[in-house]
């Protein structure tokens, strides 16, 4: 056994022991800090920090190539090379603050517009919406101004986006055309551009829906069409590929069909396709959406996984280091020549 030379070791080991003790306590404090931070980050901070910013602005372009459109001149359907749907979501910060004051929740107000353009770029239909929802949970919040195409609505379920940490289950999804919610079914996990995503599908059977407030032909109003007894019907199958971490769709498609039926415009109970097509996201918007989702996904994973697990591991390491230092301190304490129990051994040495 190595022994400390008499007259020097006893004095030198005392400050060293004190330093070890202090270091051990500092490490213990840090271990407690990081270990506590781990669950706090995941279960306290994440639900409060993860939210949709109220000022978000996002545009999306979808295309149906080819598509069927109604020629209002002849009242006959014709095939066209493409129909484009431009969807814009714009966060209204002032309205969000107003609703927040009334509801006491973090709220996002999206003013949205679905603008459908024919092959010549001219308007086929134009449906504005106001969607109010909880910034954290995506639950709808009911407030004055919530509407679809000027009609007040009371949404249930989700629209446009899934909640953070999306689950493998069916959700209620709001359909703007019918102004109602219906289940959107989880149909399995897929890989999309290298990203693991959840695939959801919703089918809306043929349903009578309101005519748009803005018709594509000048002079024709929805009231005039209604007076003639002609009705508008709609059916769709919508598909979404959703990143389960952020809840953001990275791809969307729709098998969209619209018909005008009966009345004086289509006598004898006739019907004509107003718009039909397989609508898909334009490739450049798929790329930009993927890039956005991937960056946001990293932030969410930081709060839910990387930091909590990292802090837990760091806490365990620091605790181990603290215990090690403490044990070394005690060990050297037991060998300390200054202590009466060992002093005789040291003084009786060679």
């Amino acid at each position, binding site marked *: 056994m190595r022994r400390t030379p008499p007259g020097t070791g006893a004095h030198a080991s005392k400050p060293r022991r004190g330093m070890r003790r202090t270091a051990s306590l500092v490490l213990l404090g840090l271990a407690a*800090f990081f270990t506590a931070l781990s669950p*706090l980050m995941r279960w306290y*901070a994440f639900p409060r*920090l993860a939210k949709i*910013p109220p*000022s978000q602005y996002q545009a999306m*372009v979808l295309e149906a190539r080819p598509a069927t459109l109604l020629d209002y001149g002849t009242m006959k359907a014709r095939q066209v090379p493409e129909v484009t749907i431009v969807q814009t979501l714009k966060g*209204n910060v002032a309205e969000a603050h107003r609703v927040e004051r009334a509801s006491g929740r973090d709220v996002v107000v999206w003013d949205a517009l679905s603008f459908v353009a024919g092959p010549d770029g001219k308007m086929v239909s134009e449906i504005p919406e106001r969607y109010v929802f909880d910034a954290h949970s995506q639950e709808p919040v009911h407030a004055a101004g919530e509407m679809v195409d000027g009609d007040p609505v009371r949404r249930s379920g989700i629209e446009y986006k899934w909640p953070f940490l999306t689950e493998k289950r069916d959700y209620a999804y709001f359909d703007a055309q019918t102004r109602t919610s219906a289940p959107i079914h989880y149909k399995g996990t897929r890989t999309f551009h290298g990203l693991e995503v959840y695939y959801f599908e919703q089918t809306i059977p043929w349903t009578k829906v309101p005519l748009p407030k803005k018709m594509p032909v000048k002079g024709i109003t929805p009231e005039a069409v209604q007076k003639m007894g002609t009705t508008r019907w709609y059916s769709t199958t919508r598909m979404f590929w959703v990143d389960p971490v952020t809840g953001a769709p990275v791809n969307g498609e729709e098998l969209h069909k619209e018909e005008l039926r009966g009345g004086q415009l289509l006598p004898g109970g006739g019907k004509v396709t107003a718009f039909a097509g397989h609508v898909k996201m334009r490739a450049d918007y798929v790329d930009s959406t993927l890039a956005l989702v991937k960056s946001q996904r990293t932030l969410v994973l930081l709060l839910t996984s990387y930091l909590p697990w990292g802090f837990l591991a760091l806490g365990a390491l620091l605790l181990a280091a603290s215990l090690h230092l403490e044990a070394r301190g005690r060990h050297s304490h037991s060998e300390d020549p200054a202590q009466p129990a060992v002093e005789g051994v040291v003084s009786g040495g060679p």
Partner: protein
Amino acid sequence: MRALTAAAIGLAAALALIFTVTAIGAPEGRTSPEPLLTTVPAHP
């Protein structure tokens, strides 16, 4: 006793940090001046 104090200080610091960060939150920003689009954006 010292060990308990050190652990309590660590825990209190963690709580203080988390409460501060969540209280500050994320910046809200302003409503975008960009319009709701009624034209088809060109291919990049």
